[in-house]
């Protein structure tokens, strides 16, 4: 699903440039539940931005759903994002003046789905995350966990190939974190590829595969043995 080979990325800082990603090789197959671990500055957000087509890489190859990503103009990137990717952010990033249903329906608007159809689909996904009764509430009337559920519903509504979650529990307490991770797990069980970025061990431990990133290089890439985690 996602295939990355020898990926490099640097950012210009004044006259110098900061080499953030120094040759990443990563292959994520369809249906995997992967987490990227790393402290801040390790390059994990940059990796997510590149995978999420929110930023461009300098060197190396990136294949999304078998298609090589290169020389994307903004329009093509937007269409691919809409088609293949769903985003979940740490700070939810819901539009403040739109209610839960409208927020969930927004990606469908950019996909060109008709209004009635949009609302029907959006309502199904709100129901899926257990917030059907909150459809007409504005984001500031929802709790953090509820907001993130709305955001997850929004990420899923276009039936993407991959859900990219950037610190999805970073702004939540442990109980709500738990339920959000449960939700992501459920989605993964249904066959969705889920790609989580986190710096919390116990969040990463709930995924199937942990990729550890340090100073722009992959340190380790291993499968999680669930039994072992449970005994800890």
């Amino acid at each position, binding site marked *: 699903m996602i295939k990355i080979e020898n990926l490099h990325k640097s950012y210009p800082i004044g006259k110098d440039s900061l080499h953030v990603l120094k040759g990443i090789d990563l292959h994520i197959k369809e249906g995997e539940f992967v987490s990227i671990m790393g402290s801040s500055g390790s390059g994990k957000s940059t990796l997510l931005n590149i995978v999420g087509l*929110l930023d461009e890489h300098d060197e190396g190859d990136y294949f999304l759903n078998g298609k090589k990503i290169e020389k994307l103009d903004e329009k093509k990137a937007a269409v691919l994002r809409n088609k293949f990717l769903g985003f979940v952010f740490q700070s939810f990033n819901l539009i403040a*003046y739109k209610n839960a249903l409208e927020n969930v329906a927004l990606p469908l608007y*950019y*996909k060109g789905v008709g209004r009635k159809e949009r609302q029907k689909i959006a309502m199904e996904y709100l129901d899926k995350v257990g917030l059907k009764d909150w459809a007409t509430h504005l984001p500031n009337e929802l709790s953090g966990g509820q907001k993130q559920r709305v955001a997850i519903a929004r990420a899923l509504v276009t039936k993407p190939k991959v859900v990219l979650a950037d610190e999805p529990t970073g702004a939540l307490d442990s109980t709500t974190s738990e339920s959000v991770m449960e939700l992501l797990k459920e989605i993964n069980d249904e066959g969705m590829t889920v790609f989580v970025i986190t710096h919390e061990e116990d969040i990463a431990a709930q995924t199937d595969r942990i990729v550890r990133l340090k100073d722009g290089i992959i340190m380790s890439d291993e499968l999680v043995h669930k039994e072992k985690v449970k005994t800890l």
Partner: protein
Amino acid sequence: MFNIDLWREIFQNIAKNKLRTILSGFTIAFAILLFTLLSGIGKGLMNNFTEQFASDAYNSIYIWSGKTSKPYKGLQSGRDIQFKNDDFRFILDEFDEELEMVSPRIQRYNVKAVYKAESYRYTIRAVYPSYQVLESAKMEAGRFLNMLDLEERRKVVAIGRLVAQDLFGVRNAIGKSISLDDISYRVIGVFNDPGGDNDERFIYMPFSTAQRLYGNTDHLDEFGLTYDPGYSSSKALSFGTKILKKLKAKHKISPRDQSGIRMFNYAMRNEQVNGMMIGLNVIILFIGIGTLIAGVIGIGNIMVYIVKERSKEIGIRKALGATPRSIVGMIMQESIFVTALAGYFGLLMGMFVLELIGSNLNDYGIVDPSVGTSVIVGATIILVLAGTIAGYVPAKQAARIKPIEALNDD
């Protein structure tokens, strides 16, 4: 291309962000309000000019005589110059080519006019039929003087609308007899005159009749003439000078004598008025466009601020699959809609204010201020343009927002 979903988005954006919308709308509404008031007042000033100068043919020249002020060719100064019928023939012969018409005139003031019990005093003018053109007089009933009246020295008169009103009230004046200085005349026509009340209180009679009845001489007071209407104002001015020169030579008056024969050439005034009108138009256009530009810059500023405020939202939209074009389209359409609506509101307010105060401005030389269709059409085009310009720069800026930057910017 009408896209109901896009409009729904825009209406939601507007409805959920009222303060922002009102702020940007107010700027443009105020600019258009000022623009409308300015152009209305400008129109009013121009109406005033046109009204004042429409009273007579614009290509008229009047010539009358006075006392000489300089000795010339052995003749003393202070000599009375009297025009006679041969001066009329002289002008006709000399300037036949250039003239459109010429009429001599005798004028008598405070002539008592009586019809039955009604009696008033008016100014009487004895002229040729073509004099009607000079005054731009229009017949309301009957006819003006004709050449047969002059040849037969008929005792007939054409009277002004107000004369008819004074003497006859609502009754028909045509064919009735009135007496002027105890001589009886038949009324053959009633005219109105765009020159206003004074010009509608004249009584016109055949030139030859007056010459016979008042002194039985070949004296006359004045000439009124019009030249080829195609003349430029400079040509008209030199034509006037030429007539004056020839008449002075004929009457042995020094060419530098300003008072022997006098002339009033409308071309002189037309030139001044035209210059003033052009100046006025330029000023109004300048101020109006300045105001509009200030408005456009104002709304552009607000749009830049709005885009900044919305950068996160735009980042989210882009992450969810909004193309740069859809972002530009949304912001521009919103901007055009708000400017057009606010501008139209300003236009209506301006028209309303003009309507309200218009009639009170007469004392200040502003007559019937109003905005014409061309102003409305022009303003609408300017509004849409303004909205486009004001929306384009920030929209372009918005389209450049990188989703990552916007989303990380908490």
